[in-house]
């Protein structure tokens, strides 16, 4: 048996994320004691209509969120309990509605920081409606083997350690939420566990009191003794003492009262729960509560630590008198284990999951990212640059000093080519239309293809092919290209020619050939090709795309990665253009009519639709 919450309890939680977490905790208990889901619905207007995933063991349940308690009860008439876990400013209204709702017998509130006046009104309203309002600031109510309301009881492992899967003989009533857990543990460790445990909350004016629940426990034949954890402030403990001394009670009472330290502290120095405030002239002091309870016949040890002994002693006495009949302990191994998550099982190596993707370049699972094994900060510290990171992430190799210098220079000379080219112009048009940076730069990026910037990859690819298939036969290569590809990518320029060479090409070639020791078969081959093509036509020179493509192939980058250099370099330029346009607050661009040749039909009448 139990009080307040039992196997018939069906609850709705009023509240958002915190409420859902509470429901998940409650479902763990439902699984432990093999009962149906306690939480049947949520009320949280901002998420009306959503479903919340609640696991009862391995069984997935979807619990609906409603916009009002009225709608919940219309569709779920079996609900008899409301758990409130909503912000303090809305807690009063929610609890009042709950107390007014037909079919609701118990309202318990986890919300903390509820104004005192609201709590007082709710208490009064509950008394008038004949219902129980538990809280505010209550961690919940636990009935061993039957029902968990709220997050009381902690994690799953603790539920087992405290024997909460089956009823014992002790009731627990505490003001503090944390100590409700401790008290349940003490009852399991030193006795046979609990029937029910209630946290009434540590506020100044809780909705219920010790006497409310002492009466309930007195009427619950399975409860033989009750552990009370009270504290300084208010008179609830004194009232409990009065209840105990008024007539002969069936249940034994064990108590611990916090706040005796306040006798010796400097005047006015008070701390602990909101309700833990001593009144004038020692009213509600911990000492007076202890004295009253002891006088009434309760066992009150002088420290909280003494509760263990006190519970053990009472338990032994109750065993001796036959009030409690010892039952064989359940083998804990028979209790269900909470199904672990995939991550947990994998950690233990009990399951194999085929990975969805594979990476060979980068790992962010440590304290910082590692690129092909090297930590980013160490690369920085040892003087490596962005060009080395490119080498690592694109080609899984740390470039040599000479190689990385070439990579750096390639990016530097390719970073921008003025506003007129397709990429930059695209980004500028987007910037002028008020488009954000990532989208505007993407607009420029979409221009990169066969006609704009795409030649690097193909130049590298075909010159590499030439080196391999026609090593000493340039005319053979050119012939093959003519038949199979067309013009040689990387050869030819619209403006530049032998007499008017491209400075960037000249610079790059001179640098690579003159100042490095690199072996450059592909570049050498392309220069040989150029000799032949320029002899046919003056402007069929090796252009910048061809030069870069060949050098990168010589640096051992796979040919399909070569376009990346252009994309990366131009991104720098396009971001620059976007920032530039924004700085100038540029206006929306529209083409002037005179830049358009309207090669269209004359205006004419639309024929009737047939």
């Amino acid at each position: 048996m139990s009080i307040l919450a039992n196997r018939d309890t069906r609850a709705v939680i009023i509240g958002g994320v915190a409420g859902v977490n509470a429901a998940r905790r409650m479902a763990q208990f439902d699984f432990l004691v093999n009962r149906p889901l306690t939480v049947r619905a949520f009320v949280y207007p901002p998420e009306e209509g959503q479903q919340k995933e609640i696991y009862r063991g391995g069984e997935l349940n979807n619990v609906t969120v409603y916009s009002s308690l009225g709608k919940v009860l219309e569709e779920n008439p079996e609900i008899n309990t409301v758990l409130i876990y909503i912000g303090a400013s809305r807690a009063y209204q929610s609890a009042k509605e709950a107390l007014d709702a037909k079919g609701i017998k118990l309202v318990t509130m986890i919300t903390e920081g509820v104004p005192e006046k609201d709590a007082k009104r709710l208490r009064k309203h509950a008394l008038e409606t004949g219902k129980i309002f538990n809280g505010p600031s209550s961690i919940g109510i636990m009935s061993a083997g039957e029902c968990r309301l709220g997050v009381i009881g902690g994690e799953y492992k603790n539920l087992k350690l405290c024997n909460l899967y089956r009823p014992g003989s002790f009731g627990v009533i505490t003001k503090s939420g944390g100590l409700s857990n401790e008290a349940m543990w003490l009852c399991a460790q030193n006795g046979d566990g609990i029937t029910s445990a209630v946290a009434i909350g540590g506020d100044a004016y809780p909705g219920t009191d010790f006497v409310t629940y002492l009466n309930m426990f007195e009427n619950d034949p399975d409860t033989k003794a009750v552990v009370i954890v009270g504290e300084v402030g208010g008179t609830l403990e004194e009232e409990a003492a009065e209840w105990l001394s008024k007539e002969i009670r069936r249940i034994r009472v064990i108590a611990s009262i916090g706040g005796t330290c306040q006798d010796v502290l400097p005047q006015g120095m008070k701390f602990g729960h909101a309700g833990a405030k001593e009144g004038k002239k020692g009213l509600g002091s911990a000492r007076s509560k202890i004295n009253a309870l002891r006088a009434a016949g309760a066992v009150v040890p002088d420290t909280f630590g003494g509760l263990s002994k006190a519970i053990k002693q009472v338990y032994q006495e109750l065993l001796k008198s036959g009030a409690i009949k010892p039952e064989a302990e359940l083998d804990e191994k028979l209790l269900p284990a909470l199904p672990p998550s995939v991550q947990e099982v994998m950690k233990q190596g009990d399951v194999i999951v085929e990975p969805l993707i594979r990476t060979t370049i980068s790992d962010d699972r440590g304290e910082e990212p590692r690129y092909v094994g090297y930590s980013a900060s160490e690369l920085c510290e040892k003087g490596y640059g962005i060009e080395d990171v490119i080498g690592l992430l694109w080609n899984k190799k740390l470039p040599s000093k000479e190689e990385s210098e070439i990579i750096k220079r390639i990016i530097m000379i390719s970073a921008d080519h003025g506003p007129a080219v397709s990429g930059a112009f695209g980004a500028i048009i987007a910037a002028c239309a008020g488009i954000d940076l990532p989208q505007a730069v993407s607009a420029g990026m979409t221009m990169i293809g066969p006609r704009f910037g795409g030649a690097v990859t193909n130049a590298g690819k075909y010159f590499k092919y030439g080196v391999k298939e026609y090593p000493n036969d340039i005319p053979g290569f050119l012939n093959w290209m003519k038949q199979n590809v067309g013009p040689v990518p990387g050869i030819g320029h619209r403006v530049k020619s032998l007499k008017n060479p491209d400075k960037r090409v000249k610079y790059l070639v001179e640098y690579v050939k003159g100042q490095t020791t690199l072996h450059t078969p592909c570049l050498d081959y392309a220069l040989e090709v150029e000799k032949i093509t320029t002899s046919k036509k003056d402007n069929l020179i090796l252009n910048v795309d061809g030069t870069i493509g060949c050098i990168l192939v010589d640096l051992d980058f796979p040919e399909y990665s070569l376009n990346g250099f252009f994309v990366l370099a131009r991104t720098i330029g396009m971001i620059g253009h976007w920032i530039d346009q924004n700085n100038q607050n540029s206006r929306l661009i529209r083409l002037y009519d005179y830049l358009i040749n309207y090669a269209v039909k004359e205006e004419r009448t639309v024929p009737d639709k047939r």
Partner: protein
Amino acid sequence: MAKILEGPAMKLFNKWGIPVPNYVVIMDPDRLAQLGEANKWLRESKLVVKAHEAIGGRYKLGLVKLGLNLEGAVDAAKEMIGREIGTSVVHQVIVAEMLDHDEEYYLSIAGNRDGCELLFSNKGGVDIEDNWDTVKRIFIPLDETPSIEQITEAALEAGFIGEVAERVAKIASRLILCFDNEDAQSIEINPLVIRKSDMRFAALDAVMNVDWDARFRHPDWDFKPVSEIGRSYTEAEQQIMDIDARIKGSVKLVEVPGGNIALLTAGGGASVFYSDAVVARGGSIANYAEYSGDPPDWAVEALTETICRLPNIKHIIVGGAIANFTDVKATFSGIINGFRESKSKGYLENVKIWVRRGGPNENQGLAAMKLLQEEGFDIHVYDRSMPMTDIVDLALNA
């Protein structure tokens, strides 16, 4: 419980029609001289100057000066502002009109579980404690308002006579309105004075507590509550409060000078029991501390470092009940970092650390704490099987 200073209380009285003397709150004595040019009452009335701070026993400390003219008030303000009293500094003074009066009354209201209680006496003033048997009480049930006739009748019973009784009843009815509408927990006016020549009343001094949890429905509360611990907060306490205001969960600290047992305890209920256990076993606490509601580890680390710096401590009690949802491993990692940091700065010399805790991830948390032994900490670690406050017994017997 949030006590508010006289200035904001006077402002609320004004709002609800409870008569108050003219007053100003100032930080700069020169400003007072200028206010004097603008306000006749400052030039023509006798004035009282009081330190506008949460400092107990102001009169004895010379922080209340009576019967001054404007010049005297400026001098008094100059003398008070900047004075250091223990850990507090006087930043503001309240300057009020000192009403010549014939009689002093007592009027107060305080909440209780079922409503509130209105108290009055026609023998107010400093001797009210001695005249406590003259105090007349009326219980006012929650959400009910006594009629003016009922209050007048009670006032008559309390010894007020004729028109005075009627006027006192009227002020009392406004006090009830103020109490109800401002989410007050208690208001004490002592003295409420009367000048019979023109039947002028004024609340000369007031102590008011408001429910700080209700501040969400009081947009005009432009004040902050004063310290709840009977003195102003220390720098360390203020730092922890600032962290507390920023985090999920909470961290709290109150310093208790002179003690040698430091507390680094979890949970509002358990922490008080740890303090009790120290006192019960004849020890003296160096502080009260509390972390709860699964605070982030860095906040617990900051609390730990602050506690390690407390002077003359011999033991640190890292205690707590079996947590419902505070992650023991995470909060302990904050404590461990705090201990390491403090040790590297030379603290924790000859300090014994006692640990008892349970809750989510308790095994990992306790194991990590135990490993500190290998780093030379004098640390003793116990799990849930150790009765909660018994580590205090062990510490004091060590």
